[in-house]
């Protein structure tokens, strides 16, 4: 007997007469197979990945710019005061303070219902908000990496006659990147999972569809557990990729 046939047969039986396994099957069928609902999860999954990638791109771009400007400001030669750099540094400092000082959810609500209240593209507004949020954290991670590197490394580069940015690109950033990769990976995982929050402003990702299915079937367990498993698999896949990258970057550590 095929699955649809089994469902037909079992759903005809009064609920009180079903065995535990039979009612379990019925609930799962309604949460996954019925009306091609599994397609909705994958539609949501696709949107989740899309939002993560957009937010990641925005976050990394913002994070790198903010981190480099703020580090350059902190490390400029005493006596050479660049007023433009000071203004930008001050703006970036406010940005990091505000983003880190307010909850993600509140930022989403403000962006979704105040700043972009007329926009219907909730998913993109969500991705944008997540990206701006992530940028603040990424910038602090990168800044930490740049600052934590032995100053002797930059001094060695400068003493050879390399300029500030040449030293940054060839010496400081490659080493800092290796050092911050675990925290960066952690931030990306947080970002991936935070995409679930954009359902509060109507962003159509996995949680949004899971909630819709719960509303239809009056049954919460399966849709939410399926959602959880989907996130878990994505995070595990990402962690695996990260460990491969870390292993490759460790080439110079061999003794």
């Amino acid at each position, binding site marked *: 007997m095929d699955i649809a046939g089994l469902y037909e047969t079992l759903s005809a039986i009064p609920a009180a007469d079903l065995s535990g396994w039979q009612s379990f099957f019925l609930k799962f069928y309604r949460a996954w197979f019925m009306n091609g609902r599994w397609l909705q999860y994958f539609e949501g999954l696709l949107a989740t990945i899309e939002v993560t990638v957009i937010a990641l791109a925005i976050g990394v771009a913002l994070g790198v710019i903010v981190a480099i400007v703020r580090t350059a400001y902190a490390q400029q030669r005493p006596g050479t005061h660049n007023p433009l750099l000071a203004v930008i540094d001050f703006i970036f400092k406010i940005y990091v303070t505000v983003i880190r000082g307010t909850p993600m959810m509140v930022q989403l609500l403000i962006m979704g219902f105040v700043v972009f209240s007329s926009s219907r593209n909730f998913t993109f507004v969500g991705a944008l908000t997540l990206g701006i949020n992530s940028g603040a954290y990424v910038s602090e991670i990168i800044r930490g990496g740049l600052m934590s590197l032995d100053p002797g490394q930059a001094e060695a580069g*400068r003493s050879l006659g390399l*300029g500030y940015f040449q030293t940054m690109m060839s010496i400081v950033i490659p080493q800092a990147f290796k050092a911050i990769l675990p925290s960066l990976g952690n931030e990306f995982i947080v970002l991936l999972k935070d995409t679930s929050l954009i359902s509060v402003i109507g962003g159509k990702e996995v949680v949004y569809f899971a909630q819709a299915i719960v509303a239809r079937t009056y049954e919460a367990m399966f849709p939410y557990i399926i959602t959880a498993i989907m996130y878990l698999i994505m995070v595990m896949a990402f962690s695996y990729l990260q460990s491969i990258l870390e292993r490759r970057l460790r080439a110079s550590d061999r003794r």
Partner: protein
Amino acid sequence: MIDVKGLTKAFGDHVVLNGIDEHIYPGEKVVIIGPSGGGKSTFLRCLNLLETPTSGTITFKGVDITDPKSDINKYRQKMGMVFQHFNLFPHMTIMRNLTLAPMKILKKSKAEAEAKAMELLARVGLDDRATSYPSQLSGGQKQRVAIVRALCMEPEVMLFDEPTSALDPEMVGEVLDVMKDLAKDGMTMVVVTHEMGFAKEVGDRVLFMDGGVIAEQNTPQEFFDHPQTDRSQAFLAKVLM
């Protein structure tokens, strides 16, 4: 070659260098000794502006390099620096450590830069380690590579900041040998060190720094045999025990 006038350096309220006037002549080997905190390293680091002087001027071959408008990167190329902790780039092979700056700044071709690097590596007996990473080398080997890295830029002055202080005792000799070799070639050298034997053997002039000033200076012979001030006498009594 390097002319220092009225150099002072303060970190906040803490005055490290308190007015230094000094001239370093071409081909001269100047050894700087003195107690910790006397300003030796800070003075050396001021010479290539790794520390920005609080006041005073440093003139390199007639150009005031303390002038904010002067392009310091250009003058640093002419002043090789060797650090106490080597500061090799751990993420690059030895060869890449040596060729990075010549290729990026002197615009040498890869082949040209590598040929020069191999020649110098052979001179310090490390031509077989070109493809190793710094972490695979001993301290003495790292410091020899660091010297070669500075030499690859074909500098006119070499600054040494306690080059043997972080080494195991049995490795000090191999690094000093390279430095003596360099001195024989006529390189202008400014060396901060605790190796009194090296100072006696190689130095043309000894500067004794204490309390942020050059408290005494003389030829090594005179300085070690007849120290003039109480401070230098007390210092030598301690280190030459």
